[in-house]
């Protein structure tokens, strides 16, 4: 087990290192640096000013030096400065994380509490009208763009209350918490719940075909005991893996939903930074997202190995 963990950790660091290279050079693939772009927008500018700014931002140095400078700083907790606000990138990013984390947590909770029971219901009644209806619902859930769902919620809120909810940074009452976090979280979690439901269903069907389920039935175990005690317990394992995939899935939903609902979280901040070409912010945020996704996958792999010892030997 120890060797397995060490190997996984090593691969994880290798992946993160690779991502840092890909992101850094991808953002600089187009000729011309940020100073060229800023100055092109301003029209004619004194070349001395330009050179001074280039020196100040460090973009006059070779690309590799710039990269090493960034990674070196990153390892010391120094993320550089935002081009736009000129504040330390860390101070810009950190306060926005809790908002997005709360949204993501609620969205995961929503997706699991809706997706898992409906998936079980669908599998237990395989081939019935209910199963058919639930499959169509989950497929249409996967087809709705999250941002459109958010816009529809806003439209409905205008129709009902005549106003759209405004983000409240410090919700006091339960109603405010609901409007601020729960509704956007549902908009994000809706698609994930459809995904969770599909995976729970197929995992449950796989288990229900096994011999020990037939044995349990033959012994005279009750239908609910077979479904929940024997089947769900074994079917839930593949569903856990989905949490890893969903971390990546959720981030896409968070980006558009935070934009629709005007929520000042990290996900919307990434879009703003990309639009402003604020590369120190973009590269650090993408690294942060990669760390979250890779860590989620690592935790899932560990959970899997704990619950299913066969994994440790086969890999």
């Amino acid at each position, binding site marked *: 087990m120890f060797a397995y963990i060490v190997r996984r950790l090593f*691969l994880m660091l*290798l*992946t*993160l290192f*690779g*991502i840092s290279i*890909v*992101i850094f050079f*991808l*953002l*600089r*693939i*187009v000729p011309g640096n940020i100073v060229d772009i800023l100055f092109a927008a301003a029209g004619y500018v004194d070349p001395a000013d330009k050179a001074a700014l280039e020196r100040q931002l460090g973009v006059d140095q070779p690309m590799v030096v710039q990269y090493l400078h960034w990674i070196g700083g990153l390892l010391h907790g120094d993320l550089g400065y935002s081009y736009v606000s000129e504040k330390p990138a860390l101070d810009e990013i950190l306060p926005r994380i809790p908002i997005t984390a709360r949204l993501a947590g609620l969205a995961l909770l929503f997706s699991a509490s809706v997706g898992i029971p409906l998936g079980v219901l669908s599998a237990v009644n395989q081939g019935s009208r209910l199963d058919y209806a639930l*499959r*169509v619902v989950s*497929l*249409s859930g*996967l*087809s*709705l*763009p*999250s*941002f*459109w769902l958010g*816009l*529809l919620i*806003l*439209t409905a809120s*205008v129709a009902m209350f005549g106003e*759209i909810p405004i983000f409240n940074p410090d919700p006091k009452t339960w109603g405010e918490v609901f409007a601020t976090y729960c509704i956007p979280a549902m908009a994000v979690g809706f698609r994930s719940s459809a995904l969770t439901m*599909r995976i729970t*269903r*197929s995992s449950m*069907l796989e288990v229900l075909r096994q011999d020990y389920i037939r044995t349990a039935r033959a012994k005279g175990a009750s239908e609910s005991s077979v479904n929940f005690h024997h089947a769900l317990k074994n079917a839930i394992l593949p569903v856990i893996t989905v949490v890893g995939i969903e971390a*990546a*899935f959720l*981030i*896409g939903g968070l*980006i*558009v939903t935070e*934009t*629709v609902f*005007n929520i000042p979280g990290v996900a919307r901040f*990434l*879009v703003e930074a*990309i*639009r402003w*070409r604020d590369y120190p912010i*973009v590269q650090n945020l*993408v690294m942060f*997202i*990669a760390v979250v*996704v*890779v860590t989620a*996958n690592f935790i899932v792999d560990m959970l899997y190995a704990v619950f299913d010892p066969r994994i440790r030997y086969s890999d």
Partner: protein
Amino acid sequence: MAAIDFESELRRAGALASGRWGKLAYLAQRHLLGTIGLVIMALFVLTAIFANVIGRYDPLTVDAVHALARPGWQHWMGTDSFGRDVFSRIVHGARISLAVGIGSTALGATFGVMIGLASGYLSGWVDLVFQRVTDILQALPLLVLALVMTAALGPSLPNVILAIAIPLVPIVARVIRANTLALRELPFVEAAKSIGMSEMRIALRHVLPNTLAPLIVLATAQLGSTILTEASLSFLGLGIPEPYPSWGRMLSESAAEYVRTAPWLVIFPGIAISLAVFGTNLFGDALRDILDPRQRG
């Protein structure tokens, strides 16, 4: 014991279906949802091809007098803030969605197949390198990678197609690699080797055709997600640039204002996106059931 009704059993199993049309009708009835998906996809493609005929107005012509007109006989789905006909824009938008959907899926699948085949067939260090590269690409969410790519390359149709195709490569490569590894051990590959066929020829003539079924299933499944990603990118203002009528762009952030004053600008493009994606998803599911029965849920 009741007598078995052979005829109805045989009909249910499709044994009585005769002729090309009879068999087709049987298949359509058996996979009703898939057929509905196919019909939606066909409508979507036809709309894109005949956009000039179906759309009654030019999608780019600005008409300030009729700005923000409500849906009615003149403009079936109303007009936007520039007075452009929403129905015509949606009809022409089908072209963009289709171009991005097919273009990026084909591009991503082509590179994915090449990498997956090389990685699974050659193994060794080639496999090791490709595996790490797919690890890297898969650690970033599709939308994040596509966002950074369009930001780096600049917003335009070919760049959007490229930006959405790249994240597909590792997904396709993984599946093709796993398939190739399994196929390599089968007797017919060994037989091909023993009669002295070259490795390249075995890979292309014997292994590749056998990975086609899972590839088609995967590509159809990804088609919907590429359309959704294009819509998200354009919605965020980093996809297809103005004035081209992309469905996502039509819903762009200013839509939050129109939610109050002109809800038709929010509702119709969203229906178009959802319907197109729903069609491809329904069809993809049915295709998976038919071509890849092991995965049938």
